[in-house]
């Protein structure tokens, strides 16, 4: 191993000046590192937002809804209200409760002969603060449409009683809240023919079906879980196996290649170091520090962008990990691509332009 008088601190100073100095040939590489770092975390955020949108769409379509009802349409089962509502406190369950169709009702100024149903407040929480929910489809054609996005408003039932109403936000279609009038259950409603469970997004409905079914108290026919909507594709599986997840590593390889090319363009500069007595070890250290500075910038930018966009990820550690992996691959690849500059004869390097 060759030795010279270079101190590590001075080599670091040299590396910083070579990378960040005015008119440095490595500035484009630094710009690439910033773009790669920010781009990596932004791309992961974009893909995660897309996944969330798909999941939200599936949620509205009913992908995460389980309906427990009798196995026989001719002999309905009676499911205990208490057992059904208690599922709302279970792990992985967003809402759960009985949902019972009732006869059509008149509601002014919304309309007459409107389809109606009663639901547990544990299934439709808005029913704990208002008397009636008016489906957006129904509200859209009447005077109440003006208050769609507003808070509770007054309506009149067919018997001239007034009630507070609200137009709910989008719910899974299986709950039928969009095109029905939904009322709370009566105290006398201690059981019902169907129990609806709304699972948290990303839950596995197939696994949850048997688990929660076993907790229901049922009289009459046994019940089974049915799924009103089953997606033909699994967005989570698609997300986990997407080719785009390799983008940070691809960017790292491009960065390493660019580092190698940029260093080759500086071969005659490396010759200057070697011919003025700088050892191979010091030149290698200098190249390593330059590469670390550039790759580290990519990693830092990825982390900074991940922090700025942290609300968009399933877990902010995901882009941070990918960002650091990108920096590591860039640094190692870049150094491997430039090592020979330290090993070649300086008189040959001096001839490279």
């Amino acid at each position, binding site marked *: 191993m060759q030795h010279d008088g270079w101190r590590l601190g001075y080599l670091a100073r040299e590396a910083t000046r070579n990378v960040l100095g005015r008119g440095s040939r490595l500035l484009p590489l630094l710009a690439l590192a910033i773009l790669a770092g920010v781009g990596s975390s932004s791309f992961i955020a974009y893909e995660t937002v897309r996944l969330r949108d798909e999941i939200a769409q599936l949620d509205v379509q009913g992908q995460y809804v389980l309906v427990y009802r009798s196995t026989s349409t001719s002999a309905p089962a009676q499911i205990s209200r208490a057992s059904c509502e208690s599922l709302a406190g279970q792990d992985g369950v967003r809402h759960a409760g009985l949902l019972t169709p009732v006869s059509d009702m008149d509601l002014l100024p919304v309309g007459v002969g409107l389809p109606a149903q009663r639901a547990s407040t544990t299934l439709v929480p808005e029913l704990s603060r208002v008397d009636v929910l008016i489906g957006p489809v129904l509200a859209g054609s009447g005077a109440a449409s003006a208050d769609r996005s507003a808070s509770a408003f007054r309506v009149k039932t067919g018997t001239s009683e007034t009630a507070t109403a609200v137009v709910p936000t989008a719910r899974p279609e299986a709950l039928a809240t969009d095109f029905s009038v939904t009322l709370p259950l009566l105290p006398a409603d201690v059981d019902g023919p169907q129990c609806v469970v709304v699972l948290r997004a990303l839950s596995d409905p197939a696994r949850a079906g048997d688990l929660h079914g076993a907790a229901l108290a049922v009289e009459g026919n046994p019940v089974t879980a049915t799924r009103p909507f089953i997606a033909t594709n699994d967005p989570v599986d698609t997300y986990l196996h997407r080719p785009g997840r390799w983008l940070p590593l691809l960017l790292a390889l491009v960065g390493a290649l660019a580092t190698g090319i940029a260093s080759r363009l500086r071969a005659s500069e490396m*010759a200057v170091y070697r011919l003025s007595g700088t050892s191979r070890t010091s030149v290698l250290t200098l190249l390593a520090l330059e590469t670390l500075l550039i790759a580290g910038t990519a990693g830092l930018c990825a982390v900074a962008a991940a922090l700025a966009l942290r609300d968009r990820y399933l877990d902010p550690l995901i882009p941070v990990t990918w960002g650091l992996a990108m920096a590591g691959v860039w640094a190692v690849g870049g150094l491997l691509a430039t090592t020979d500059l330290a090993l070649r004869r300086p008189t040959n390097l001096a001839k490279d332009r």
Partner: protein
Amino acid sequence: MQLDVRDATLTFGAVTVFSGFSAHFESGRVTALVGPSGSGKSSLLAAMSGHQPLASGTIELRAAPDGPPTAPSPQLVAWVPQGSNALGRRSVLDNVLIAALGAGLRLRAAETAATEALTMVGLADRLGQQARKLSGGELQRVALARALASGKELIFADEPSANLDAANTDRIAGILSRLSGRATIVVATHDPVLVAAAHAAVHMRREARHAA
């Protein structure tokens, strides 16, 4: 530092660059290494600086005439390359500073050494300028300043006047003359101006290029 080359033979594969070559380079003097193109002047400099191993023969360096010999090493030599190699985007001072820092000086001392060296080659007014904005002759002087700032006792210059006009060649010759006594300087050259400026000349001849 004096240099002795004895029975040196250098080959690149089947090609013999020189064989049985011997020479003595006096300490603190400027010696011109003269010979036609292809005679192996640059290769001899590379061998004397430890960049290129010999096929046979010896090269010995001595700090004093009766001192113990040491083997050539790149760390003992400051090299002034053919052409205008420089850290083009860095300042003239930085270009010389690296040699002083590489010699183990602390930053302040290195800056002083680099400034003195640049003053000696007549570039004291260009310290902050980017090296790429200098002319070929000025870059050659920067290379000489770098060799000076390194504080090394051996300076090898490979065709330092190549591609320079007469005025710049005279200037380089003047600088080399002024450097005598500070270091042992070997200048590979065709240039009669530089040969005349040297204290001694060693002649190399072109070998038959292919071994039997």
